[in-house]
């Protein structure tokens, strides 16, 4: 169904970039038999802390002690963001910048403000902000929004590897754990474990979902 929503460039999914079994343009983790992360745990943890600041959702809610398949989404999103050498470099710089802000005493809300809109109130155009947004959107939607980032803020283009300048769903697992639906006190369309008739009454609270305002 369609109506008024704005036109988007043709969007591809992770696998549709090529029909061949071994597509060089895909991130390495998608070819491997497991999600391979070659960064130290401390870096992933920093990435998670930064994500928590951006989203306003606690790190131990984004990555709880007990996770399905022991597969933390932080690792998944980190590996997508750092899949190319350029992305790796950008994320490194972003995390360095994030640590600096924290060391300077910035609260999570301040970190988010600085990373997303600098001091202007408009979306910040720095390379760090590009990856902050991309990270935030992966947690929110399970989508890598490289194409939208570039078409909305053309200055971001040099920060993103050409193979990643499109929008794609990271995976069905990412889609099913997308936080925007929990913020809406619902579930991803096409994936609900709620009961018959659950729509007839009020949904669980934000607190139930693990989100504290």
């Amino acid at each position, binding site marked *: *169904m*369609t*109506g*008024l*929503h*704005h*036109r*988007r460039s*043709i*969007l*591809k*999914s*992770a*696998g*549709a970039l090529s029909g061949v079994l071994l597509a060089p343009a895909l991130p390495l983790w998608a070819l491997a038999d497991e999600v391979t992360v070659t960064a130290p745990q401390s870096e992933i943890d920093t990435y998670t802390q930064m994500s928590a*600041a*951006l*989203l*306003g*959702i606690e790190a131990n809610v984004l990555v709880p002690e007990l996770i399905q398949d022991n597969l933390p989404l932080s690792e998944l999103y980190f590996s997508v963001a750092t899949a190319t050498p350029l992305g790796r470099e950008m994320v490194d710089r972003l995390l360095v910048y994030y640590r600096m802000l924290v060391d300077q005493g910035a609260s999570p*809300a301040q970190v*988010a*403000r600085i990373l*997303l*809109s600098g001091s202007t*109130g*408009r*979306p910040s155009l720095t390379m760090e902000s590009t990856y902050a947004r991309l990270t*935030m959107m992966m947690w*929110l*939607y399970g*989508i890598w*929004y490289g194409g939208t980032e570039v078409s*909305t*803020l053309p200055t971001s283009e040099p920060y993103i590897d050409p193979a990643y300048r499109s929008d*794609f*769903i990271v*995976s*069905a697992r990412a889609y*099913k754990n997308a936080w*925007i639906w929990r*913020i*809406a*006190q*619902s*579930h991803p*369309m*096409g*994936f*609900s474990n*709620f*009961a*018959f008739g*659950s*729509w*007839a009454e009020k*949904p669980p609270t*934000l607190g139930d979902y693990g*989100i504290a*305002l």
Partner: protein
Amino acid sequence: MAKGEKYDVVIVGSGFAGANLALILGREGKRVLIIESGDNFPSNREDYMENFYLNTFKSPNSPYSPDSNALDPCHTNAPRPTIQALVEADGRVPDWNNPAKSYFTYTEGSLPFASTYERGVAGGTGNHWMGTCLRMGDEDLKLRRDFGHGLDWPIDYDYLEPFYGLAEHQIGVSADVEEQKIVGTRFPADYRYPMRGIPLSNWEKIAKARVDGPPLTNERYAIDRTVVTATPAGRNSEPYQERRVCHGNTNCTPVCPIQAKYDPTVSLDQALATGNVEIRYKSVVDYIILDSSGRIGGVHYQTYEDISVPATPGQTGEGRAMGTIYVLAAHAVENAKILLHSARISGRPIANSSDQVGRNLMDHPVYLAWGLLPPDAPAYGYRGPISTSGIETLRHGPFRRDRAAWRIELGNAAWNWPVGDPYVTGLDYIYGTDNGAANPRRAVHGNKDYVRVLNDILTRQFRIGFLVEQDAEARNRVRLSTREVDNLGIPRPLITYDLSDYTRAGFEKAREAAREFMARIGAEDFTRTVSAAENPTTFDYNGQSYNYSGAGHLCGTHVMGTTARNSVVMHSQQSWDHDNLYIAGCGSMPSIGTENPTLTMMAVNWATARDIIRRL
């Protein structure tokens, strides 16, 4: 059966009409062959669901092959219209009118046809239907006699009534008779739906409490009340046919993950289990063969293997199927295409002495309205079936002399359809844009501000949709393109499409009713219209602009009627011109009222089945 042998019935298409005909005939011990253009339905729904989850463009096409993100109908083996072709723009030429991208081609001055269908999967378009199962009313079937517009059915509601019951039990419809009587539907005294009605959603209950009352416009209606009622639906409220009950996946269209919503593969599965029904997949019937006496002598089909886009190999083989009786059940547009192509090949009209084949193309163009409920009564949408209620009491009445009727569907998926949320507004607050109109200050938020603002907006969103009747007009038609073909060399449709003033006047009143709805519910109205440059499905009327969406209801291309001169088929859907040919589906409907056509089509189909059995 061995090649060359004749079946009792050859059916083209395994959708609602074809699969159910095959089931009824198979249960009667008839030998049936189905020729299906699409792929086998997979042994499980994981494939469709993964297609859907991974698709960034979650249209009704999105779970089904061929891939609707790749627009290349010339190089697709069984292409069909896509929403992407409707909205994407390749440079300056809008894609809907670009034959390299759009399956449909258009004559000059046409409006874009806003609805799509499926050909690449067994079960056809029924895979992505919503599930709404409203019966048409007496006056819906006599639009010309009673109101001077469109065409009349050759039968009336009393004729259809018992078949409606059969259809409702085959599909498994959840509704309560007493409630449905409120909207004017007539039932036999002891009739019961197979399952209880589905409860209204949280926001629909709010709407009912605030909106029920006088009609929404100052016109004369048969029932002069606005009443929100639960919508009868082919969606389980109790375990039925070994299928699960609805769990509110909010995904009816395009695909119910758990098949709580009926789809034609349920009947196809049952048909195959009788042992009397065979099916050939990836086989596209391109033309009908006449014998020397002018009866149908066979259907010719091409086979293909490659479902990818672009497909490299095209035709892999061909065949000819023969039966005592033939049924075209390939969908309204495809039925017409087959008949017209057969005429082109044979040099004489096939089933078309009336010249009505392809004409009277109709849809339900939809007027969408959306808003935010007040903070003290959030909607909490994005839950439940996509729609569980509607306003049906305003469908009928003397106003139909002046403007097209509509029914109002209340939607549970918040602003997903009209705006593309939660994506658009969610991104608006990251990029400081206002594409969804809910970020007028173009703020950029993060951390708790983001959560707070998005939670507030998303939980208050709601939408309603007016399904506006389109009257049959001979000028709205499907013909064959003389230039464009698909990868199998079959000519693609050439569409001429417009909306009559009658229908446009219906939109005008829909807008008025929507505003009254918003006022009663205390909502902040966010409905807006964009220009044709931004959205090609736009028209003007009486100084105002309207955007229209498609409800997915393609009808009218082989209407039934009283004579061979004014229609293509009899009320049994038998062709006037060839006595061993039936043409089945929504294409037979001379008028479509405001109701989603599937249930009525199923009822008509039942009568067709009885007729075929009687003759065999």
